Each structure stands twice: as C-alpha cells, then as structure tokens.
C-alpha cells in the first residue's frame, strides 16, 4: 500500500496517475465501495472525505479502512492534509480533524511508501 498526502488542490491524483499508464488504475472517489477488475490497482482519492462521511454516519473508519487495505494490499490511498490549521469551533470538525490525523499515522505505519505532494511535486517521506 502507498499513502499520498498533501494540502488541498496540490495535484496529488495527477502525481499518482503519472506513475503508470491510466488504464492500469481504478480510481474510487471518496468511497471504498466499487468493484476492482482483475489486474487493476485501486486508487482511493479523497480518503479524508470518506472518513468524514463515516464519522457522520457513526461508523468506524479505522476498522473499515484497515480491512480495505487487507483486501487490496496494492492500493494507493490519497488524503488531504487537514490538520494544519486553527482549532475548529465545532466539536464534530475537531473530532474529524483529529481522527483523520490518527488514521493517517496508522496508514503511514503500514505503508511501504508515503509521499507528500506540494505544488504537484512528490517528496517521498517514507
């Protein structure tokens, strides 16, 4: 598994897709649901949005994402960095920010490679 993180609109998906020919990938956008045809690698874009939906629904994002990674060990997960700001006034926003950070730490620990993308440029940090 590979984890790609970075700020909003930094070219993370493009960075991932330039890595290989387009048709080798299936991109899921903000969801973990969807079939992955044989021989294709799965990219999950906007993972942070999926985490947010999970928390809204009272589901357990940690459990679900770890199970997903186990089923798709070759996947690429892309998430916005959302922790670098002022503490939100709203309690749900605070919870979302903290949980997303913790999930990214967990995933970074499991990943073979972690890349941080800024201005479309990837820095391999693991």
């Amino acid at each position, binding site marked *: 598994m590979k984890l790609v993180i970075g700020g909003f609109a930094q070219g993370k998906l493009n960075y991932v897709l330039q890595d290989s020919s387009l048709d080798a990938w299936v991109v899921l956008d903000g969801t973990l649901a969807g079939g992955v045809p044989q021989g294709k690698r799965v990219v999950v874009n906007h993972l942070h949005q999926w985490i947010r939906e999970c928390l809204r629904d009272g589901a357990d994002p940690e459990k679900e994402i770890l199970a997903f990674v186990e089923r798709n060990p070759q996947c690429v997960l892309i998430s916005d960095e959302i*922790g670098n700001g002022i503490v939100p006034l709203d309690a749900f926003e605070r919870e979302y920010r903290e949980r997303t950070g913790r999930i990214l730490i967990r995933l970074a620990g499991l990943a073979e490679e972690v890349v941080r993308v800024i201005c479309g440029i990837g820095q391999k*940090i693991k």
Partner: protein
Amino acid sequence: MMILVMGGSGSGKSAYAEQCMIDIAGEKQKYYLATMQLRDPETRAKAEKHRRARKGKGFLTIEQPRSVRLVLEQVEGNAVLLECMSNLTANEMFGEGGLPQPWETVAETIVRDMEALNGRAAALVVVTNNVFEDGVLYEETTRAYQKALGSINERLAAMADRVVEVVAGIPLLIKG
C-alpha cells in the same frame, strides 16, 4: 540542546517530542510544562490522554498556561518539554479577559521567556503547531493570533539546534 517540534493536529508530534526529550535528557529530571488551560470536559479529557501517554516515562508535570518565566528556578539545570506553544500563545494573547494583547507584544514576551528558559534548562524540547495551512482567511483577531505564533515559530526555529516537522507520525528534519 534545544529541539523545536512542529506538526498539525493529530500528526503524532507529542509522541515524537516525548521520545526526543527522553533521548536528550540523560540523567536530568524531565519536566513537562503543560500550557493548555483546563476549562471544560474536552480539554480535561485531552490532558488526561496526554498524561496517560507520558505515564511511566519519568516526567514531572507543571501546569503553566502562561508566564513561563515563573518556572525558571524550578527547572534550572534540568530537561524541559514544553507542550505546546499554540496554547501558550493563545493564553498570553486572550487570557486576561477583555481585549486581546497586540500580537507583537505577545510574541516579544514569549520569545524573551523562551530565551531565558533555553538559557537555564539543560535540554529543551518545544512543541508547536502548524496552524497556517488550512487556506481559510480568518477574521482579524484570529489572523493576529496566527501572526504571533508564526513570528514565535520563526524565532524559536532560529534559536533551536534542531527543527523537526512531524507528518503522519513521520519526523522530517527541517534544520540541524
């Protein structure tokens, strides 16, 4: 030896900073300078979580939501982990009630206190926050707070022997 550890919320900066402190403190007593004001169940729960994470690592906790200069004698010659600069800055700026202090004054006071602390402590680790990259243009008071913390971070980074940014639990060396 002074290390500045920066990171966002939930980045793993606290765990990393504690490990830094343990690595550089040697035989010195380790003090944990806690700057968060405990005023509701959420902040108390957060402090409790941090306290549990530090348990058994030999830290003595001092609650110091502002005026770090008041602990200089107590920690003289020992190792200090200050967590965190973003709370200290908020408390110095807004803590007295009434109008917030001007950001320049707040930054100046804190930097002077930190210079004194760095002079007296045998080892110092400071945790600070990245509150600059959420792309939101806040109203004037919050922007002043961001300016204060930005200016403090800049000057602490110049003072520090090592500056580390923690991203998704991964330490990235910025300086040193």
